C-alpha cells in the first residue's frame, strides 16, 4: 500500500506539488489526469527519488516504510517501478545486460541470490514473447536509436521482467500508435493483480479504454482536486478541464 500525505515538492525553487494526498491499496489501479504543468511528472519523480525534486513537507510511505528516506535504487528494491515518459539511452549496454544487472541488483537488495544466466534468458524471452516483442530488440543497446514506440515497448518488457509491486507509469501512452498502445495496455493488464498497486499518469482517456482504472484523479495546480471512477475520465474527455470547472490556477 502506497500512502502519500500532504506532499509538497519544490523544483528549482518553485513549489510544484502543494499538499497532495493519495492512497493506493494493493490490487488497485489508479489513473491521474491533469492539465499541462499540474505536477503529474513531478509526483512520479518525487516518489521515485530523483535528484532536484525537493520534498519540503509531507510523507510517502510504502508498506509502512518511509520511501523518502531511501535512495532511488532502494526504492526500486522495495518494488517500485517507474515507466519513463522519455526513456533514456545508454550506448554500448545491451538491453539484456542492463536488465539482468538491474534484476540481480534488486534480488540482492531483497536478500535473494542472483538469477542464473540460463533462467534469466528464459524469463526475458518469455516476457518479450508475451508482449509480442521481437527478441532481437533485447540485444540492442538500451533505447539507442529506438523509435518512440519501441522505447515504450521496451519499458513494458523491463516492467514485466522486474515484476514490481508498485508501478508508476508516467505518460507511457503518449505519442504511441494504436499497436504500441495495445502493448503498453497489455503490459499493465498482465501486471495487474491482487498484490500490485498501479498508478497511471496520462493525458488521454484512450489508454483507459484498454486498462480500466478503479479510480481516476484529476491533478491541478499541485493538488488532487477531483476523484471518481472511470466515468470521470469520460466526462473529462467530453467537457475538458475548464468544462469541469478546473483551471490552471485551481489553487
Amino acid at each position, binding site marked *: 500500500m502506497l500512502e502519500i500525505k500532504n506532499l509538497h515538492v519544490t523544483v528549482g525553487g518553485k513549489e510544484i506539488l502543494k499538499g497532495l494526498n493519495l492512497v493506493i491499496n494493493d490490487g488497485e489501479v489508479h489513473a491521474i489526469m491533469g492539465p499541462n504543468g499540474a505536477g503529474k511528472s513531478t509526483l512520479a519523480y518525487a516518489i521515485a527519488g530523483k535528484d532536484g525534486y525537493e520534498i519540503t513537507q509531507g510523507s510517502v510511505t510504502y508498506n509502512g516504510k518511509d520511501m523518502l528516506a531511501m535512495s*532511488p535504487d532502494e526504492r526500486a528494491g522495495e518494488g517500485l517501478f517507474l515507466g*519513463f515518459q522519455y526513456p533514456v539511452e*545508454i550506448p554500448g549496454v545491451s538491453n539484456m545486460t542492463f536488465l539482468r544487472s538491474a534484476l540481480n541488483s534488486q534480488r540482492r537488495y531483497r536478500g535473494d541470490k542472483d538469477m542464473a544466466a540460463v533462467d534469466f534468458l528464459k524469463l526475458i524471452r518469455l516476457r518479450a514473447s508475451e508482449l509480442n516483442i521481437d527478441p532481437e530488440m533485447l540485444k540492442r*543497446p538500451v533505447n539507442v536509436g529506438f523509435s518512440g514506440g519501441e522505447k515504450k515497448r521496451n519499458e513494458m518488457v523491463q516492467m514485466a521482467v522486474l515484476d514490481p509491486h508498485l508501478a508508476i507509469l508516467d505518460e507511457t501512452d503518449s505519442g504511441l500508435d494504436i499497436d504500441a498502445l495495445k502493448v503498453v495496455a497489455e503490459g499493465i493488464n498482465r501486471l495487474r493483480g491482487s498484490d500490485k498497486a498501479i498508478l497511471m499518469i496520462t493525458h488521454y482517456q484512450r489508454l483507459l479504454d484498454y486498462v480500466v482504472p478503479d479510480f481516476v484523479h484529476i491533478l491541478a495546480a499541485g493538488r488532487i482536486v477531483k476523484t471518481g471512477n472511470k466515468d470521470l475520465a469520460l466526462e473529462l474527455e467530453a467537457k475538458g478541464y475548464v468544462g469541469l470547472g478546473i483551471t490552471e490556477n485551481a489553487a
Partner: protein
Amino acid sequence: MAATKEARQTVEEVSGEYKYGFVTNIETEKAPKGLNEDIIRFISAKKKEPQWLLDWRLKAYAKWLKMEEPTWAMVDYPKIDFQDIYYYAAPKSADDGPKSLDEVDPELLRTYEKLGISLKEQEVLSGVAVDIVFDSVSVATTFRKKLKEAGIIFCSISEAAHDYPEMMKKYLGSVVPVADNYYSALNSAVFTDGTFVYIPKGVRCPMELSTYFRINEANTGQFERTIIIADEGSYVSYLEGCTAPQRDENQLHAAVVELITHDDAEIKYSTVQNWYPGDKNGKGGIYNFVTKRGACRGKNSKISWTQVETGSAITWKYPSCLLIGDGSVGEFYSVAITNNYQQADTGTKMIHIGKNTSSTIISKGISAGKSSATYRGLVRVMAGAENARNFTQCDSLLIGDLCAAHTIPYIEIKNPTAQVEHEATTSKISDEQLFYCQQRGLEVEDSVALIVNGFCRDVMQNLPMEFAVEAQKLLGISLEGSVG
C-alpha cells in the same frame, strides 16, 4: 628462507668477482641508490650477462646522460631525482613482505575480493611469501612444456641473453632505438628483466601467453624489457599485467616493449595496467613512462595493441606501429581511466611506410575527480605509402565538473592516395542516465560502471575473454567515489 639465502649467496659471488671494486652491503640486498656506470656493471654482472650486452647498456647510459627529460606531455609532476632511486634490488625475500594477509592493507583486500581473486592469488599479488605450491606453478610447468613442443621460446630476457644471443643481438633495440627517447635510453641502461618470446614460422601459439604465469617474474616491473618476435605466418596473443592492483614500492616505471612481425604474422598484445594511482589527495602513486612499439616488417603482417589503463599517478604511453611491410595492419584500442588526481597522456603512433597499409585507432578516455586524460596520436603516411588508410575515433567521457579531457591528433600525409578519417566526441554521464539505472535497482556506483563499460565496449570486446571480464569489474572499481 631458502630463497633468501640463495639470493645472498648469489650477490656475494657476484660482488666477490667484481673487479671494479664495487662494494655493496649484501645484507640490504639492494645496490645503493643512484645511477652510474658501476651500478650498470653491477646489474650486468649480477645477471651474468655477456660483454656485448654490458657494452650496449653502457652506450645507452652515455646517451641518456646527454638527453633531456621530455616536458611536452600534458602531465605535471615534481622533477624526478634519478640519483634517489634504487636501480637494483634482489628478489624479495620472505623477510620483506607481509607474513600473512592479516598484515595487508584491508582496502587492497577488499578490491581483490571485488575482482573475485582467490585467496592464494591474493597472497601472491600482495607479496605475502608463499611456499611455492600453489596452483599456478603446476600450470606454469605444463604450460612451458606445451610451448616447447611447439618450438616456442618463452623465457626471461636474462635467459634469452644467455641462450639465444644471436636473436637478442638482432632484435634488442631494433624497434625502439636506445636513444629513441629519454626513458627508453634509461631503460636500455638499467633494465633488470622482462620477457622474451619467439614464435617460429607457421606456428599458431596454442594459448594466451601471460607474464602472470611466469613465476620467476617477481619484482621486475620497474625497468621491464619485452621482446616478442612472430616469424612468418605465426600468431600469438600476449597478455601483460594483471587486473589486480599490485604491491610495488618503486615509484618510477620505465618499460620498453618491442614487437616484430614477419610476413603474414600477427601479434595481439593486451595490457591491463593497474599500478597504484596515489591516494584521493594525489599523494604517492606510480609514474609510468613506457615506450611500446611494434614493427610490422613482413608483408600482410598485423600488430594489435589493446590497453586498459586505470592505474598509475602519471601515465605516459604511446604504443605504436611501424607499418613497413606492404599490406600490413596496425590497430590500437585503448581505454584510459583517470580519477582523483591521476594524469594520463596516452595514445598511439601509426607510421605508414609500405603500400596498402591500414590502421585503426579507437581510444576511449574517461576522466573523473580532478583528473586529466589526454589522447595524443600521430598518423603519418610516408611518401611511398600508396593507398594507406586510417580510421581514428577518440571519445571522451567526463564524470563531474572538475576533470579534463583533451584530444591532440597529429596527422602528417605525404602521399595523396591516403584516406584518413578522424572522429572525436566528448560527452558526460548525465543525471538522467544515472537516475534511469538507479530507478531500475542499480546502486549508483554500479550504474556508473555499467554506463562506462557501455562507453568502452568497442575496446573491451578486443580483450581476450578472461581479461575482459576482470577488466569490466576493474573499470567500476577505478571509478568508485566519482559520483555522489
